[in-house]
């Protein structure tokens, strides 16, 4: 049985296209994973920053209810104060 050249060309095209699809799919998945990983790291940084801000607020609240010089100095050394801003 003779194979027509058109069939061979089509099969070759199909194989090339399938291989390219696999490569692009793999690269896309890898790059998307990298983006997700970066997003996770940035969100972790933001979460920690928000967390430490909440801790600072807690300490400021604590210093309002329990005034003492040590906590005031500690807060001041980080540029924080429990006093309202001067008008």
């Amino acid at each position, binding site marked *: 049985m003779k194979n027509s050249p058109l069939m061979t060309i089509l*099969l070759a*095209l*199909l194989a090339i296209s399938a291989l390219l699809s696999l490569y692009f799919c793999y690269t896309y998945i890898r790059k998307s994973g*990298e983006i997700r990983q970066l997003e996770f790291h940035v969100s972790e940084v933001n979460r920690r920053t928000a967390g430490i801000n909440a*801790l600072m607020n807690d300490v400021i609240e604590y210093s309002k209810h329990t005034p*003492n010089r040590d906590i005031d100095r500690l807060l001041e050394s980080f540029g924080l104060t429990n006093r309202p801003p001067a008008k």
Partner: protein
Amino acid sequence: MNEIENKPVSTPALETPDLREQIQSLRHLVGSVLILMVMVSGTLTIFLLRQMKTASTQLDAYRAQANNVMGIYRQQQEPLMLDFAKRIQLYGQTHPDIAPLLAKWDPVFTNWGWKISAQSSATPAGAPPAGVAPRSNTPSKK
């Protein structure tokens, strides 16, 4: 017996024009299916190429931003945050009334991978953080 066994199988059916026509139409069908598959596969390849290019562009843009954010965090923010947490822990040693607040935050620090031990920190409570000029010590007043 032998004559019957050695007799070549006649294939008269293969030579009928009807079967030739069927084979020809099957060839056309396979050709058409192949063309369709090449078209579908090509479309998918182009779609995936575009997706890959978009992801690549996004990654390049986002990587620079993320590295900047993480660099600032690691070099500037984290040492200060860690210092603050350590000094609050130290403060808690001499002021037990802050213990509930510290108990609330200890699991968070552990979750962040911070090993904060009040004993291990050399900085006393009330002392300025790194990079801040020290101030004169005054006795605490309650």
